[in-house]
């Protein structure tokens, strides 16, 4: 199988290039993209990429495979490229490249930091723990599962144009995760931080984020909930 890999070292290369490597794949197996990348790395050990758990939990190997963002470790080659087609691997779009498929995620984490991704509760702590009803806990389903792989945010044009100002789908999914949490008491303060023309309202609802989320989450719906909360509070 022919694999085309984005190569770029900003310190030494004037511009990025695509390197084509022929990789032998067992005929009866449908490997994951990460496995193919490992085989390619055996042929050229200078290829750089992030990986860790290789089972879609750590979110390290988010990359663009034949034009679609996803996690290389849980995306079968048959799904990414199709039978007999070339596999084209590029870094997540919109973020600065550190080396080859490794991107600088500082701005992504900065946006995550902005939404204060932790419980805020000024009430005195109870003796054992802050209890939550099963119904309230259910509201966090579809939100807490995010692994911050950045596949969604880097697939969002609004995030490409304003990465410093638009929080992006990943950050906003987490923002709603804490807005929806019955144990959090900072709802008004959190909403006040989001009521500007960029943080939330750059979302145009094109649902690119939903299309690529490897965990099957729906940031667009969470953003809609944030808008509704802002509307309820602000009118």
């Amino acid at each position, binding site marked *: 199988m022919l694999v085309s890999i984005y190569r770029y070292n900003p310190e030494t290369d004037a511009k990025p290039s695509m390197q084509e490597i022929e990789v032998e794949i067992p005929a009866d197996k449908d490997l994951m993209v990460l496995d193919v990348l490992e085989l390619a790395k055996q042929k050229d050990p200078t290829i750089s990429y992030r990986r860790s758990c290789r089972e879609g939990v750590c979110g390290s190997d988010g990359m663009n495979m034949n034009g679609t963002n996803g996690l290389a470790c849980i995306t079968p080659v048959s799904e990414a490229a199709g039978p007999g087609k070339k596999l084209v691997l590029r870094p997540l779009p919109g973020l600065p490249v550190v080396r080859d498929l490794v991107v600088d995620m500082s701005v992504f984490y900065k946006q995550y930091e902005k939404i204060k991704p932790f419980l805020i509760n000024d009430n005195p702590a109870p003796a054992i723990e802050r209890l939550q009803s099963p119904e309230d806990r259910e509201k966090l389903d579809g939100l807490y599962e995010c692994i911050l792989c950045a596949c969604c945010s880097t697939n969002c044009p*609004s995030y490409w*144009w*304003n990465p410093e*100002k638009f929080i992006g789908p990943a950050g906003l999914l987490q923002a709603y995760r804490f807005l929806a949490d019955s144990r959090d008491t900072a709802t008004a303060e959190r909403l*006040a*931080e*989001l*009521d*500007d*023309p*960029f*943080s*939330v*309202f*750059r979302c145009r609802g094109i649902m690119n984020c939903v299309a690529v989320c490897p965990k099957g989450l729906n940031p667009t719906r969470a953003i809609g909930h944030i*808008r509704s909360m*802002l*509307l309820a509070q*602000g*009118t």
Partner: protein
Amino acid sequence: MVTNATSFSRSGLTDWLVQRLSAVVLGAYMLCILGSFVVHPDMDYEQWRALFAADSMRIFSLLSLAALCAHAWIGMWTVGTDYLTSLQFGKGATSIRLAYQAICILLIAVYLIWGIRIFWGT
């Protein structure tokens, strides 16, 4: 909170609401105009003049014009802050964006004043 001095209201929620409400007003106005063509398929100039001479129509027209101006500014401002940034234009982005915003707001102001003159002038 990302501050911005040139947006319509400085509040994302307000801009968002204004854009939706103005769209409803513009939609209703379009239906009204199209409806009058359907009811009077052979409308001549005198009937056209009479239609816009009624105070109700003048108010509705001015309201729609104001809605169009607000809608246009929010839309153009959004387009400008998406595409005319330092990512595309480097250090010159602020000048380019400010010039673009100034041209947009001037044009919108001219259209608004001109429209008021057309609808309410003698």
